[in-house]
């Protein structure tokens, strides 16, 4: 892989509310290299979006606060630099594509003007030049008749086109890092395929590192080089994409993979869901957040959070079950029995 772009170490972000402290992210670490795609997977409330927003310092403060950790971008700690400096980073070094293209564009400002804004701000171009660039960018992300479209308002764009416009905006200043937060969740599957294609194309063209946040394990399998699985604000497992799908070590990862209906398998296998509900982030269980739902829970699980254990090249897991026992349990799970047979 290419040069290291971003190193996040031990990041914790909490929200201080009247009801109590919401521990959204608790000690999360990861890295991102040039041309690499990191998939962050988890269910709602697992902390994946808050982790990404923390990198860009977009957490509303109050009530939110990054309470610990380092976010290293080219030697600078994004957590401690001034507001002026972080504004230079946003859009210029790190850009974000949001989930909902319907609400993340300003409805009363022309598309061209919304794209041109960052270009004028970061690259010091004139308004005319910036608009011209905006039209070129729209063309690059596959919007037909871009010269005309640039003068239109968001309501004149379909959902897929709005997401393309968001991508155009994100790549306008050639950022090193692109964070895509559920970029295709609001879209139909044929449009999702188009958008994933555009993101990939842009990544290749600009040689950026991409952080893709999603709950869809299909999308991750398609685009990610490495995967981080989050649960209850913690990283329960991370590793290269093949390791996570074919050699997963954490019971939560097993549970996720076992709960998915498969389109490409003819016979009807029964799903193995995870019992119970995701934890309340205000009253997280002591120790592992998955305790209480984990079928293989032992007494250590309620005590302390298990230290990260390296189980393979660039593959780590946080779980109290000893490795050989984990292997033995996994072999008996229906999802992996099939995998082993094929």
């Amino acid at each position, binding site marked *: 892989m290419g040069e290291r772009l971003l190193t996040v170490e031990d990041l914790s972000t909490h929200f201080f509310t009247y009801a109590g402290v919401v521990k959204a992210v608790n000690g999360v670490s990861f890295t991102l290299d040039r041309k690499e795609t990191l998939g962050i997977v988890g269910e709602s409330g697992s902390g994946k979006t808050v982790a990404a927003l923390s990198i860009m310092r977009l957490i509303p403060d109050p009530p939110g606060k990054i309470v610990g950790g380092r976010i290293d971008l080219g030697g600078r700690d994004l957590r401690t630099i001034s507001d002026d400096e972080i504004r230079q980073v946003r859009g210029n070094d790190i850009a974000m594509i949001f989930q909902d293209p319907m609400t993340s564009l300003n409805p009363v400002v022309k598309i061209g003007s919304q794209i041109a804004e960052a270009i004028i701000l970061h690259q010091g171009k004139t308004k005319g030049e910036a608009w011209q660039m905006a039209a070129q960018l729209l063309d690059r992300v596959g919007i037909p008749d871009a010269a005309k479209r640039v003068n239109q308002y968001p309501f004149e764009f379909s959902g897929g086109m709005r997401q393309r416009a968001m991508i155009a905006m994100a790549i306008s200043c050639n950022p090193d890092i692109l964070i895509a937060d559920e970029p295709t969740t609001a879209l139909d599957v044929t449009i*999702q395929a188009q958008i994933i294609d555009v993101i990939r194309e842009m990544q290749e063209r600009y040689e950026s590192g991409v952080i893709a946040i999603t709950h869809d394990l299909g999308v991750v399998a*398609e685009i990610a080089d490495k995967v981080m699985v989050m649960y209850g604000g913690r990283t329960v497992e991370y590793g290269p994409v093949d390791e996570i*799908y*074919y050699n997963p070590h954490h019971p939560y990862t097993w549970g996720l993979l076992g709960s998915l*209906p498969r389109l*490409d398998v003819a016979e009807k296998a029964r799903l193995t*869901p995870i019992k119970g509900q995701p934890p309340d982030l205000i009253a997280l269980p002591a120790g592992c957040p998955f305790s209480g739902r984990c079928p293989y829970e032992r007494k250590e699980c309620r005590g302390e959070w298990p230290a990260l254990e390296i189980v393979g090249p660039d593959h780590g897991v946080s779980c109290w079950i000893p490795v050989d026992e984990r292997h033995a349990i996994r072999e008996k799970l229906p999802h992996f029995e099939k995998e082993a047979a094929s």
Partner: protein
Amino acid sequence: MSLLEVRELKKHFPIKSGVLKRQTGTVYAVDGVSFNVEKGETLGLVGESGCGKSTTGRAVLRLIDATAGTVVFEDIDVMKASGSEMQKLRRDMQIIFQDPYASLNPRMRVRDIVGESLKIHNIGTPEERKKRVFELLETVGLNAEHAERYPHEFSGGQRQRIGIARALALNPKLIICDEPVSALDVSIRAQVINLLEDLQDEFDLTYVFIAHDLSVVKHISDRVAVMYLGKIVEISDSRLLYDFPQHPYTEALLSAVPIPDPHTERARRRIILEGDVPSPANPPKGCVFHPRCPRAQEICTTAMPRLVSTGGDAGSPHEMACYFPARFAGGERRVDTEPFKAAFSAAGASV
């Protein structure tokens, strides 16, 4: 005889504008949909947003009045049923809604939500009704203590269970499931899917399962109907759907669904459709799919092909509406250059 027979069902919504609210256009939400549902089976209705799948479900239950067509449920014409006949029919036909947050009245206790239909239909004494509600809650994996609570005290998955208990209260024969798991997280989704499967076995239920997620629909259904712009373009046995899609839209839709398996993903060829789904207020002439179709030829612009049986190349009944379907014979896939004659509509498409 099928439990449910839907023939040429149409639902057109008027577009009204101006001060006089004159009709200035029509949204062809559902435009000639026909299918049968056999007792005990699950028919999946799948398609992208705006294809008319939910409208179809609602028109079948007469929650909205259809513009044209017939719906026959156990020999009774639902479209023509009188008020009292309709009330009887509603005991047999129920619905589970998509949004577990919007479909439960926040001011009602769970016992009243689940027991409301029993009360309306005058079933049992208050004491018996209470017992029945407890029983229903346990059936869907909640417990009797939950009866006194309000919807806001429950998570999304639990609310969907309340919605399912409500649908089960009158021992229906048919349940229309309108995107019942779309709003739920992966791990909770699997719980609800398994629950729906168990209930089907236990109570001999028939489902029409509406969803946009093809993997879910394929998993739960026996047969899958694929909709595009108000029409059914293909109906296939769900086991054969992935390997033998005949309609080009089904093919594209299947290829667009990401599969949670990196090896499979790397080996797949993706068909990327260009452009967006056209507006149902102004559907294309001829086959509704032709502007985005990689196989479209001149004949496709003349008339919509009929939904016809293709003789079950893959070994089971299979219907589709295309002049140039993919055929599978002797383990090979081919697309004829001559248009498929059987698909010519009465309206008269000709070469």
